């Protein structure tokens, strides 16, 4: 099945085509057909997953798509464990959203169109996941962006929804500029765009440059150990700036006294913080040293630098899709789309594409500490930023949106620190509980017809299933033992701690506290207490089966899916999905306990403020008026962008429009007027000169006729006179 995994994306595509061309009229058939197709994809993805589980060697198949003289651009698929896991995530969430949508979108007249777009989106996402070369990734990347634009702006008759779609598309497009530049730079530097080849190339470049990591794996393989990323961010950054001689001198002082007999031994293992490793490195490097190879090293280091820059640029694209700072502004607005769309796109799949891309770039991150620092920093900033904004929002979907951004920040941060398994594992678990949260929120909105949690309350009594599943998901996302969110969050903390990146650890802990707080604020305000809006409460009812069943399935997954990554397991997640070599770290109980404490305290504070109401929320809001306003207005990011970027562009547009009107239209009108004048002139000429000539000839004839006709006097004697005159002349001439 793995060889044929390329047909998995084709089923939802087929659903799209069929609905658009044939089934558009019949809503029911369209929806069932779409669900059927995506379920087929799910089944096939399961099959692929089990095959890869048995045989974890990556499967790749390429076709030489573009062949120049010395450059070949291949297109194809690359199925490794990460891709298999992603396939499962995408198909599961997509299938559940399809089923849920049958109930949610019931009664909407353009029901069939929604399923068509869902199918197209699923196709794009699945294609992205199995793509084997970055160019193919870019193609599906753009497709995903486009389909998400359509889906966000599904209710395009509402201006706000159309604007949201536009905002999403434009913001991600701006970020994609980075992706494109990065991709071009990458191809230029390395000469290939396919994933496996790139990873190979980087490995060989590292050998050439004399950079060898821990001897955990042979052949200088990288590991996803926390320390593989950055030892100490600032130190390494400085190290990278130094010349090899300086670094060598420093390390020589520090460590071993033996000096290799070569001229310029290259020493640039920026990953190392441990002395033994440096010694090993130097031994290996010294052994491989010759004069010619130093040039190769220079070249290799130069190429690695370029690759690092390319990586940062491509990460910029990932920022756009995953709504990281500073491209995060589109995600909250994207909540204007229907809730199933939010669940699918903004919980589980599209935003995961950025994380997926960053994970794929792990080779670059490991070789370029600069990139790793950038990635981790942005992730951390985003996590804190979004969590803080989410604390004070009142729209249920907006809170969830910021929560998504914050969790994505977590994933990005840990990827930047080198935590390949941790990041992708969090992606895996987050997809399920975030999708559940959104779908449950959709269920609530469907029931009370409002998004504002200030108008909700006490819905637990009316919507038991929704409430319980929402609670499960909230516990999971807060990281409560033994739900799945606990295990994935713990992995993240472990990576940060073991790598010694205490700043990031602190950021992660703070964000975890805030996460727990706002999630339970949301829960308490929505489902507990007295109903604040009697009218809405009276109308509330539990949603139909096709909406609640997906909720229940996702709740189960939210509990148990994370157990795959329990660190005591021998062949758990980390031994399946890894980069370089599998990592088995000792589970750190202290860290686990710490995260639990943090989560419980967050829940506790929310409990006090919103359930028991012993601490008044309004009091807090008044006391920290300034901070509250700042957070409520999302740090004024939108206003800032509007003023600095968008308004100048609008002004320019205005000016260009006026220019167009004046100059270009003026020119066109001028030409028109000129033509009119020219035709007038020609008409005048024609009338006066040409007609004059013709008429003149006529008048001439008439005039001459008038003159000549006078000779015909009609009088005989005149004729006789002329006859005799003629006779006289003739005689005269005869006798001359």
């Amino acid at each position, binding site marked *: 099945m793995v060889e044929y995994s390329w047909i998995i994306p084709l089923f939802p595509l087929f659903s799209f085509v069929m609905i658009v061309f044939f089934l558009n009229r019949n809503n029911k058939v369209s929806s069932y057909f779409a669900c059927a197709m995506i379920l087929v994809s799910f089944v096939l993805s399961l099959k692929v997953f089990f095959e890869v589980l048995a045989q974890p060697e990556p499967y790749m198949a390429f076709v030489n798509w573009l062949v120049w003289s010395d450059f070949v651009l291949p297109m194809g698929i690359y199925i490794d464990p990460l891709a298999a896991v992603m396939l499962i995530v995408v198909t599961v969430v997509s299938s559940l959203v399809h089923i849920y949508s049958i109930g949610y979108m019931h009664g909407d007249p353009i029901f069939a169109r929604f399923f068509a777009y869902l199918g197209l989106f699923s196709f794009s996402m699945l294609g992205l996941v199995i793509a084997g070369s970055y160019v193919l990734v870019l193609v599906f990347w753009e497709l995903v962006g486009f389909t998400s634009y359509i889906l966000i702006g599904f209710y395009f008759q509402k201006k706000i929804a159309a604007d949201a779609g536009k905002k999403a598309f434009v913001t991600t497009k701006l970020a994609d500029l980075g992706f494109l530049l990065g991709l071009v730079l990458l191809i230029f530097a390395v000469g290939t765009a396919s994933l496996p080849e790139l990873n190979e190339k980087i490995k060989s470049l590292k050998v050439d440059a004399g950079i060898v990591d821990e001897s955990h794996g042979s052949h200088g393989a990288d590991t996803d150990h926390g320390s593989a990323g950055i030892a100490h961010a600032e130190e390494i950054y400085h190290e990278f700036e130094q010349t090899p001689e300086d670094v060598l001198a420093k390390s020589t002082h520090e460590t071993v006294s033996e000096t290799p007999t070569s001229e310029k031994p290259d020493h640039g293992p920026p990953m190392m913080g441990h002395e033994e490793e440096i010694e090993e490195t130097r031994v290996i490097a010294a052994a491989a040293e010759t004069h010619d190879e130093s040039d190769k090293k220079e070249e290799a280091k130069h190429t690695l630098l370029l690759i690092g820059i390319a990586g940062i640029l491509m990460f910029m694209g990932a920022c756009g899709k995953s709504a990281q700072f500073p491209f995060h502004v589109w995600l909250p607005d994207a909540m204007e789309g229907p809730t199933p769309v939010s669940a699918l796109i903004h919980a589980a799949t599209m935003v995961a594409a950025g994380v997926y891309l960053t994970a794929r770039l792990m080779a670059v991150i490991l070789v370029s500490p600069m990139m790793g620092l950038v990635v981790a920093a942005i992730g951390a900033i985003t996590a804190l930023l979004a969590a803080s904004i989410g604390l004070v929002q009142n729209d249920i979907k907006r809170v969830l949106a910021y929560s998504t951004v914050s969790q994505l920040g977590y994933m990005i941060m840990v990827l930047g620190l080198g935590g390949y398994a941790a990041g992708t594992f969090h992606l895996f678990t987050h997809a399920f509980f975030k999708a559940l949260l959104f779908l449950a929120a959709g269920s609530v909105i469907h029931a009370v017809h409002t998004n504002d949690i200030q108008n909700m309350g006490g819905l637990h009594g009316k919507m038991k299933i929704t409430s319980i599943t929402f609670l499960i998901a909230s516990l999971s996302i807060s990281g409560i033992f033994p739900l799945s969110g606990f295990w994935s969050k713990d992995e993240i903390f472990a990576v940060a701690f073991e790598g010694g990146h205490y700043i990031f650890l602190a950021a992660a802990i703070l964000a975890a506290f805030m996460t727990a707080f706002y999630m339970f604020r949301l829960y308490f305000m929505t489902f507990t207490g007295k109903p604040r809006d009697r009218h809405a409460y009276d109308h509330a009812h539990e949603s139909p089966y096709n909406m609640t069943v997906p909720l229940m399935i996702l709740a189960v997954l939210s509990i148990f899916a994370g157990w795959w990554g329990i660190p005591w397991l021998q062949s758990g997640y980390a031994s399946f999905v890894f980069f370089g070599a599998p990592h088995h770290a000792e589970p750190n109980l202290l860290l686990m306990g710490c995260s639990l404490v943090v989560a419980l305290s967050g829940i506790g504070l929310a409990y006090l403020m919103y359930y028991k109401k012993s601490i008044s929320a309004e009091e807090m809001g008044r006391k920290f008026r300034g901070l509250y306003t700042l957070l409520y207005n999302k740090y004024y990011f939108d206003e800032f962008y509007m003023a600095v970027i968008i308004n100048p562009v609008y002004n320019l547009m205005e000016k260009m429009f006026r220019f167009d009107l004046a100059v270009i239209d003026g020119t066109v009108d001028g030409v028109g007027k000129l033509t009119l004048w020219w035709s007038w002139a020609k008409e005048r000429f024609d009338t006066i000169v040409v007609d004059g000539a013709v008429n003149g000839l006529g008048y001439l004839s008439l005039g001459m006729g008038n003159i000549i006709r006078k000779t015909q006097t009609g*009088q005989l*004697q005149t004729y006789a006179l002329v006859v005799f005159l003629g006779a006289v002349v003739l005689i005269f001439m005869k006798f001359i």
Partner: protein
Amino acid sequence: MAEPTLLHYLVLGAVLFALGIFGLLTRRNAIGVLMAIELMFNAAAINFVAFTKFVAPEEIAGQIFTIFIITIAAAEAAVGLAIVILIYRNFKGIEVDNINFMKW
């Protein structure tokens, strides 16, 4: 020179003929024009008779011809005057100036 020579007669003929032409070209009365024509006939007749006498007296062809001239003149005068009568009937006047309908 007691006898008039041929030249005398010819000159006389020429004079009469010229006068006849003059009358033909200038007379307004139609009958006046006819009279001028008669003059021209007579001038020609004089020439003929003069030639008979001085150039070919044995064969009196000229005189024969003159008889014919006179006869034809008579016929012509008859028809011409009939036409004049007709014109008079139609136009109440016989000034040839006024008979100019075959014109522009």
